């Protein structure tokens, strides 16, 4: 599914985002990426979705060779991924429903498919009642649910979330994490970068720990290391 082979990312200013990472994530896994600020979590995820390209080594995602890929193919790679960010990133001038539908319009789905899939996705994240609301009429947790629905609606093989609960209170964070687990149980590979110690410890998933660009540990049913 996802394979990093000795992948290194050195930014143009010389900072190493990720160093010689070799890691494999199988279909259907749930993986936490943890580590202190600046350790390379976002870099790791950016390499997966071709927002950054490795300066050395290889990255394979859903059959695409991301390290060596023509620009024209990037949209297709992205369609095989669902992405969720800390700051939500919804289109402010579209309703919750239209934000989700937009992701389907981009892949040229028929309006029949859209009318069928969008309510299902909104239902899955428990937001059917707020379909007509605009992002600024929704709470942070609700906005993140819309983002999840948008990420899911095209049935991506992999869901990537970069600190999805970073702007949410503990209770809402748990709700979002539970949703991610539910999504994972339906067969989607889920990769979450996070600082949420208690959640990581409680969920007993695979945990990849980064430290200054290095993979420090990679454990099944791992826990959050103390940062000191």
């Amino acid at each position, binding site marked *: 599914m996802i394979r990093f082979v000795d992948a290194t990312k050195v930014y143009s200013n010389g900072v190493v985002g990720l160093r010689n990472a070799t890691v494999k994530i199988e279909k259907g896994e749930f993986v936490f990426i943890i580590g202190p600020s600046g350790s390379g979590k976002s870099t790791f995820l950016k390499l997966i*979705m071709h927002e950054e390209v490795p300066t050395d080594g290889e990255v394979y995602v859903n059959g695409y060779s991301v390290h060596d890929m023509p620009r*024209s193919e990037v949209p297709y790679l*992205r369609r095989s991924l669902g992405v969720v960010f800390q700051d939500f*990133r*919804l*289109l402010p001038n579209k309703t919750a429903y239209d934000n989700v539908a937009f992701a389907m319009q*981009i*892949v*040229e789905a028929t309006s029949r498919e859209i009318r069928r899939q969008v309510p299902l996705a909104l239902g899955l994240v428990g937001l059917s009642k707020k379909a007509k609301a605009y992002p600024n009429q929704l709470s942070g947790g609700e906005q993140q649910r819309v983002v999840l629905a948008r990420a899911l609606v095209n049935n991506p093989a992999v869901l990537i979330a970069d600190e999805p609960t970073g702007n949410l209170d503990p209770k809402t964070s748990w709700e979002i994490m539970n949703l991610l687990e539910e999504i994972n149980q339906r067969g989607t590979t889920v990769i979450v970068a996070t600082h949420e110690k208690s959640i990581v410890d409680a969920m007993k998933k695979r945990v990849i720990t980064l430290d200054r660009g290095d993979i420090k540990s990679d454990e099944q049913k791992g826990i959050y290391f103390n940062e000191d």
Partner: protein
Amino acid sequence: MKIRTLKLLVKEGANNVVKNKLMSFASTMTVVVTLFFLGIILLIAVNITSNIEAMKRELRLTVFLKIDVSPFHREEFVNFIEEKKEAGIITDYVIISKEQMYEDMKQILEDEVFLKGLTVDNMAESFEIKLANPDDSDELIKQISEFRGVNSENGIGYGKDELNKLEAILKVFNYIVMAVLAVLMVISVFLISNTIRLTVFARRRQIEIMKYIGALDSFIRWPFIIEGLLIGFIGAVLSFIFTSLAYSWIQNVMNVILTNLNLATLSILEFSPVALQIFVIYSIFGVIIGGIGSFLSVRKHLNV
């Protein structure tokens, strides 16, 4: 691209025009002004050309016979003219007799004093000859001047040289017009691409999000280009309306001026016969300006 996607993108583009009212207004006005200048300059050029053409058609070669021409020499010349008419070089001619000329002179010189010395007998008979092709005039004038009955010293007149000068001036005018138009076009493409650049900038978050969820470059680009095309077309329609209003005003003013200056032979063209052409030209130019403007800025600032 599927039809439903095209529809969606056109809708997005149209929405953008409506939502960014200020930007759209600014860009549209740029197009309106550019096309307005284009149209007015074009109409001036068309008017000058058509008047010169009309003058050319009305141009007549005037040939005076000698006052004391013998019937034989007169006959000789008339035969020549008839021949040329058969041959199609001369379309038509009229003879102005001595008597007629005397009457005309009487009309012009109302004052009896001047008429005292004038009698029918010191009038010369003349021919007003219309040529099929004004370019034949030099050759014909040469031949005519050889007739013994013709007053070749100062009795042959043709206004072609003046017209040629006018035409030369018109040519220069046309080049200047084209240069001015090219500059105008470049300026308006630049202005449009700037306004579209601002709308691209205003929507960079949206573009980023679209890229994250796997939108193709074309999907991101088209609404902007459609926005440019629409602005160009709307500008063309508005400019057309302004032009037709301005032109009919100019037409009225010019007609009054020409009448007062006794230049009624010059005429200002009506707008309606050229309205369709003007509209088509405006639409094409408007759409080109808008399309190129937005294409440039999207390519440069969207990096997609």
